[in-house]
C-alpha cells in the first residue's frame, strides 16, 4: 500500500480511537463521579480569598470546629445549574454548612447566577486565578469537599450533587463525623 493510499485511512483510524473513548463512557460499572482524591484524610490546603460582593474574605481559618462543605462553582458551568436546587434544598433545611468558591469567573456574572438560581452559601470566596482549585486538586466545576472539625478533607464529590448523593453519601458522612 502506498503512502498516498494510507493517508486516506487516517479518518477511519481517528474515528476508531474516538469510538473507544465513547464506549468507555458506556462501560458497565462506569461511574463518572467516582474519583479518588489524593487529599482524603489530609489537611485541607490553606487559602485566603477575596469575598464576593465585597463580603469579608474567605479563609480556611474560618472553618474552626465545624464540619463544613466547600463547593467549587462558576456561573458559566452548566452542571452547576443542575445541582443548584439540591444545594438550595440543603441550605433551606440547614443540613450542612456550605461555603462557595467561585472558580475563574467574573464576579458580576456570579452574582447574576446566584440571583437567578439562589444563593445556598454561607459565604463565597472568589478564586480568580484558580490557585485554590489547583491546591485542592479540582478537575473542574462543580466539585464539593467535606472538611471535618480538625480541618481534614474527608470526602469529595466530582460533578453535580444530586438528591441521591445527598441521601447515600452526605447523610451517612454527617452521621459518621458526628454532626451536632
Amino acid at each position, binding site marked *: 500500500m502506498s503512502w*498516498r*493510499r494510507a493517508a*486516506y*485511512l487516517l*479518518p*477511519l483510524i481517528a*474515528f*476508531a480511537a*474516538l*469510538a473507544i*473513548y*465513547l*464506549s*468507555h*463512557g*458506556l462501560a*458497565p460499572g*462506569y461511574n*463518572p*463521579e467516582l*474519583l*479518588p482524591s489524593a487529599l482524603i484524610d489530609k489537611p485541607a490546603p490553606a487559602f485566603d480569598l477575596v469575598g464576593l460582593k465585597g463580603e469579608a474574605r474567605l479563609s480556611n481559618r474560618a472553618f474552626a470546629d465545624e464540619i463544613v462543605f466547600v463547593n467549587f462553582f*462558576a456561573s*458559566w*458551568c*452548566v*452542571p*452547576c*445549574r*443542575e445541582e443548584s436546587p439540591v444545594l438550595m434544598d440543603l441550605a433551606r433545611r440547614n443540613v450542612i454548612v456550605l461555603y462557595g468558591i467561585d472558580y*475563574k469567573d467574573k464576579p*458580576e456574572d456570579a*452574582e*447574576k*447566577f446566584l*440571583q*437567578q438560581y439562589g444563593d445556598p452559601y454561607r459565604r463565597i470566596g472568589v478564586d480568580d486565578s484558580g490557585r485554590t482549585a489547583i491546591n485542592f486538586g479540582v*478537575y*473542574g*466545576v462543580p466539585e464539593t469537599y467535606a472538611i471535618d472539625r480538625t480541618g481534614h478533607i474527608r470526602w469529595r464529590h*466530582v*460533578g*453535580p450533587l444530586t438528591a441521591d448523593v445527598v441521601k447515600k453519601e452526605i447523610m451517612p458522612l454527617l452521621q459518621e463525623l458526628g454532626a451536632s
Partner: protein
Amino acid sequence: MIIELGHFALILALAVALLQAGLTFTGAARNDLNLMAAGRLAAMAQFALIALAFATLVHAYFVSDFSVANVAENSSSAKPLLYKLTSVWGNHEGSMVLWVLILALYGAAIAWFGDAMPPRLCARVLGVKALIAIGFLLFILLTSNPFLRLSPAPEEGMGLNPILQDPGLAFHPPFLYLGYVGFSVAFAFAIAALIDGRVDAAWARWVRPWTLASWCCLTLGIAMGSWWAYYTLGWGGWWFWDPVENASLMPWLAGTALLHSAIVVERRDTLKSWTILLAILTFSLSLVGTFLVRSGVLTSVHAFALDPRRGVFILVLLCIAIGGSLALYAWRAPALEPGGVFAPISREGALLLNNLILASCCATVFIGTLYPLFLDAVGGPKLSVGYPFFDRTFVPLMIPLLLAVGIGPLLAWKRGDVLGALQRLWAAFAAVIAAILIAYYLSHGGPVLSVLGIGLAAWMGAAAVVELADRLRLFRAPWSEVVRRALAQPRASYGMTLAHFGLAVTVAGIAASGFEQQSIALLHLGQTLPVAGYTLRFDGIGKHDGVNYTADRGDFTLLDGTRVVAQLEPERRFFPLQQQTVSKTAIHTNFFADFYLALGDPDNKGGWAVRAYWKPLVPFIWIGGVIMAFGGGVSLSDRRWRVGVAVRRAAKSALPANRSRA
C-alpha cells in the same frame, strides 16, 4: 387503538425501508430501471407510513390520552394546545419519531425529484437513506418506543418541563432536525459517489441544493434556540457552549465548509475527495451529536433521560455508519481523479482556507465538548470546560476567517490578485475606520475588543456590498448597463452577498455585547432605577393566572426623561405540577437595542429584586442569522438548480470559468 395503528405503521415502515434498500442497491447494480423505480416508490411509502405513525402520536397528545406512557410522562391535560403539540418532540421517544419522519421526508423528496437525476445515482442515494432509516427505526422500536401503553392509565400526566413551554422553542427542534438530518442527503450522495467511483461537476450540482436547504434550516434552528435561551434563561446570555448547543454547532460549521468546497468541485472539478470526506463528516457529526444528547455521557441542561441501553445502541449505529463510510472512503477515495491545479492565492485557495479554518473551529468545539469524555481515560468526571476554553480557542480562530470573508469573493479562479482585491476594497477600509470611530465615540471608549469587533463586522458588511457593486460595475458603467448586469446576475451570487452580509450583522451583534449596561436593585413600589440613560419606574405588582401556572406580574414603565418609551411586564411563573418557578422576561426592542427586564425574588418586605439590562445591537445576532438563511434560500431559488437544467448543463460540462458565478 389509534396508537397501536401508529406502532404498526412504524414497524411496516421498517419493512418498507428494508425493501427499499434491497430494491435500490440491486437495481443500481443490475442497472434495472424497474427495480430502481420501485425503490423510489418505496421511499415515498416509507415516508407515508412514518407520517401516519407520527400523526397518531400527535393525536394522542391532542386528546391527552394518558394510557399512552409517553403522553402521561410528558404532557398534562391543562396546557395550551400549542404545547400539547410541541410536547410530542419535547421528549426522547417522540423526538426520535420526528427525526426519522424528517429523514423519510428528505428521502421522499429525492424520490419525487429523482426523474431529472441519473437513475443509478438516485437509486444508490435512496439505498443509503434506507440503511440509515433501518438503523434508526430499529433504535426506536427496540429501545425508545413511544407507542407503549400504561395500565392502569393515570388520571393526569406529569406535564412538560415549564422552561420548554415557549413559542420560541416550539419550532426550534423541527428546524434543527431539518438541518442536521438533512445532511444525511449529502452523506448519501457521498456514499453513492464512492460506490460509483466518480465525482464530477454534475454530482456537486446535485448535492449543493440539498446541502443548502439543510444548512438554511439548521441556521434558523440554531438562531431560534439561541434566541430562546436569551429571553428565557433570565440573564440575557445567548450562547452557553453547552454540549447540546455544540452538538448543533459542529454540523453547522462542517456543513458551511461543505457548501463552500462543493462550489470548488462544481466550478473547478477539484478538491473532490476532501468534499466527499466533508459530506461524510458533516452527517457523522450530526450522529455524534445525537449520541451525546441521548446517551447521558455528558452533562447538559437539555439532555434527555438516560438509559444505558440506548447509548450502546446508538454507539453501535455510529460505528456502523461512520466507521463503514470512512472505510469505504479509505478504499475508494484514492481512485478519484485529482482535478485542476490552482495557485494558493486564488478563489479556490480562499475557499480552501475557509474550509481549513472552519474544520479547525469544528475540531476545537469537538475537543471542548468531548474533553470530559477524554478525561475519563485518566479517571475523570462529568465536567464543563465552559466558555473560558471556547473564548480562548474558537474566537481567535474565527478572526482570520472573518477577515478573509471580505477578500475571497473578489479573487479570480485559478490565480488571484490580493493586492488588486484590497485596492478594490478601499471603501471597506473606510467603513472600518468610520465604524471603529463611531463605536468608540458612542460607547465612550468601550472595551477595545468590542470596538475592534464592530470594525471587523463593518469590514465584512462593506466588503460584501463592494463586491456586489464591483460585479454590477456600479458608478463605473452607465445606469442602463448596471441594471442589465443586476438582472443578469445569477440568484446564487445574490445569495452569497446576502449570506456574507448576514454574517457581518451577526458578528456586529456579538461584538456589541461588550457595550451592554446593567442595573440590579431591590425596588419598592414607586421607586425608579436609572439604566443606560433611561429611567425604569416600578408601578405595581399583581397576581396573574395562566392555564397551568400562577404568576407574579410586575408593572414597570420605561422612561426617557419624561417620555414614556414602553410598558414592561416581567413575570415570575410558578408551575404547581412541576413545583418549578420560571422567569418570564420583558423585552422592549427597537431592533437596534434591547431593553431587557427580569423580575427576581421578593424580599417579603415589599421589595423586589429587579435586573435591568440595556443591550445594544443584540437583536443583530438573530437578524443576521435570518439574513444568512434568507441568502441561502435566494441561492436555492437559482434557476440553475431547477429540475432539468442541471442535466442539460452537465451535458456540456466544460463551462468557461466565470468569476462572477460563485
